[in-house]
């Protein structure tokens, strides 16, 4: 198992390098140049501008520039944010926990809804419950997160006045009140993200479960006289989860996309809203770094999925 995890780790490195290469090429191909202002500034003589360009290596061949950028990123030198007046890595580390908290709770909610509903629907295919669950799931993943977010605000904040619609990091309360406020303000963003995820996950769970439930070993388990719950939970579910894990990992990029939108709607100070605000204020080092962090998170979650995969199906880790 540990050898399998190590092998997966080694496979993740080329994909990280590939992603960083894609990002760097995008940046290099983009029009515009950090020194374009110098070229048009009459107070800077052309030879000074040329010397500066040479000093920062802007005229070097592209592979040299890529290697230098990669080395700097690997050493934690992520640049300086001109708008926030602080180092980019510090800025991102400040914002990252909030994003992970919201995404993590949303995923948890999605799993808590999708697994029971999907399994229950699969044990009674084409029943009324199955049809209702299917239709709701269809509607759920056709509703874009930005619209559900606005609907939630309209219903729960404006009409009913139950929940706050702006997320604050400095709640003016202590003790148990602080915890309650913290949970209250996270309810809507987590619901929006979690329900969207739950919709597509329910479909995955249902179809994976339907495939497994027809197999002979499940019939054998029933024939041995085991109860329905035990057959489903102990025998069928573990195997049904294998394709689900893959599909959930493939969904990760979409989850981060949804997180950007929800952070923007509810003004959550995470890295998603940081990305939007730095795009609007032309803060290139932050934009690049946040995009790269998102890419790293996707690779990380793929890695976790691979490890889970090995645990669910021991045959895979032996290969």
């Amino acid at each position, binding site marked *: 198992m540990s050898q399998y995890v190590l092998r997966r780790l080694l496979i993740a490195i080329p*994909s990280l390098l*590939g*992603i960083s290469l*894609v*990002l760097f090429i*995008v*940046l290099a191909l*983009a*029009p*515009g140049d950090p020194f374009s202002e110098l070229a048009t500034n009459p107070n800077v003589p052309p030879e000074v501008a040329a010397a500066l360009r040479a000093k920062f290596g802007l005229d070097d061949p592209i592979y040299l520039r890529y290697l230098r950028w990669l080395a700097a990123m690997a050493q934690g030198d992520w640049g300086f944010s001109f708008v926030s007046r602080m180092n980019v890595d510090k800025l991102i580390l400040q914002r990252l926990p909030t994003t992970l908290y919201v995404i993590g709770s949303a995923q948890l909610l999605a799993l808590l809804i999708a697994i029971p509903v999907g399994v229950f629907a699969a044990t009674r295919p084409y029943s009324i419950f199955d049809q209702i669950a299917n*239709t709701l799931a*269809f*509607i759920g*993943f*056709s*509703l*874009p997160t*930005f*619209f559900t977010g*606005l*609907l939630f*605000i*309209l219903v729960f904040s*404006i009409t009913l006045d139950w929940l706050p619609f702006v997320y604050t990091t400095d709640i003016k309360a202590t003790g148990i009140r602080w915890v309650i406020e913290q949970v209250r303000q996270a309810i809507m963003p987590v619901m929006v993200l979690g329900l969207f995820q739950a919709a597509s996950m329910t479909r995955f769970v249902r179809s994976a479960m339907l495939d497994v439930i027809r197999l002979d070993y499940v019939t054998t388990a029933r024939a041995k006289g085991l109860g329905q719950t035990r057959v489903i939970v102990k025998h069928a579910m573990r195997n049904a989860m294998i394709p689900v894990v893959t599909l959930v990992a*493939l969904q990760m*990029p*979409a989850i*981060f*996309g949804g997180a*950007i*939108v929800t952070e*923007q*709607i509810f003004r959550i100070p995470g890295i998603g809203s940081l*990305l*939007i605000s730095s*795009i*609007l204020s032309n803060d290139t080092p932050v*934009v*690049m770094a*946040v*995009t790269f962090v*998102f*890419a790293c*998170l*996707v*690779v990380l979650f*793929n890695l976790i999925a691979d490890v889970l995969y090995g645990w669910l199906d021991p045959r895979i880790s032996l290969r």
Partner: protein
Amino acid sequence: MAGLTLASPSAERRPAWSPWRETWRRYRRHKLAVVSAFLLLALIAAVVFGPFVWRVSINDIDFSARLEGPSLAHPFGTDDLGQDILARMIYGGRISLAVGLAAMAVAVIVGTLIGALAGMSRGALGHALMWLTDLFLSLPQLPLLLLLIYLFRDGLKAVFGPEGGIFILIVLVIGGLRWMPVARLVRAQFLSLREKDFVEAARALGASPLRQVVRHILPNAVGPVIIAGTIDVAAAIIAESTLSFLGLGFPPDTPTWGRLLFDAKDYLDIAAHWALFPGGAIFIAVVAINFIGDGMRDALDARRVI
């Protein structure tokens, strides 16, 4: 009829229907898909012919009718400048639907090309292309979409004008980040089809690889591509609306559905209709297209018995 013995087995056979008629017969079974097809057609007709019927300009500012709810003069109400929301939604719907279709076309063309190349090559090229596909699948799409638009929008704006430049950019970027599922489907189909006897026969008759692909393999691989393409239209509409909703899509004076929501979100408490109508339009378009895709799956997957 039950219990009757038929004179000959051939009498039981259905009359030979053309494949398209058979497809339609299977599609019709999915009631929601049929309803969705009509809904989508109605929506397309509304945005295409709407301006000829509803002749209110999208830029008529009328401060005496600010943030009004639905009325006879303004069926969908007005925004903070007193502009007619119905007229703006008709205009924006054209863009949203056009972006969806064009981005789907880009995704399907790129995906089919890469999938076909990977499916036909027996060497390193196939592996390299699949590695590229997997790499693209693990890219965080929305951040990358935002990054690309941030970096390239000024350049394209200068060449093609503000609206045309952004349209080309958004279509290329959304399509360019959504071709991977199509490529995988096409490759999987090609890997099994290229070993089939009828392709072998064509090869034995001296058909060039290009002819084998275009005449024999591709027509048989088209079903899953149509299904994936349908779903892609919905995904592209959501992607475009998301960009506009974040304020990074089309220029502010172009009222796409996402942009209307972006403008409306600060007035939710006093003018909820402003957000509900465009949001509802996005939802109806997306849910209808998804149901059509579901119906297509029933209709085109020959192995599925319905």
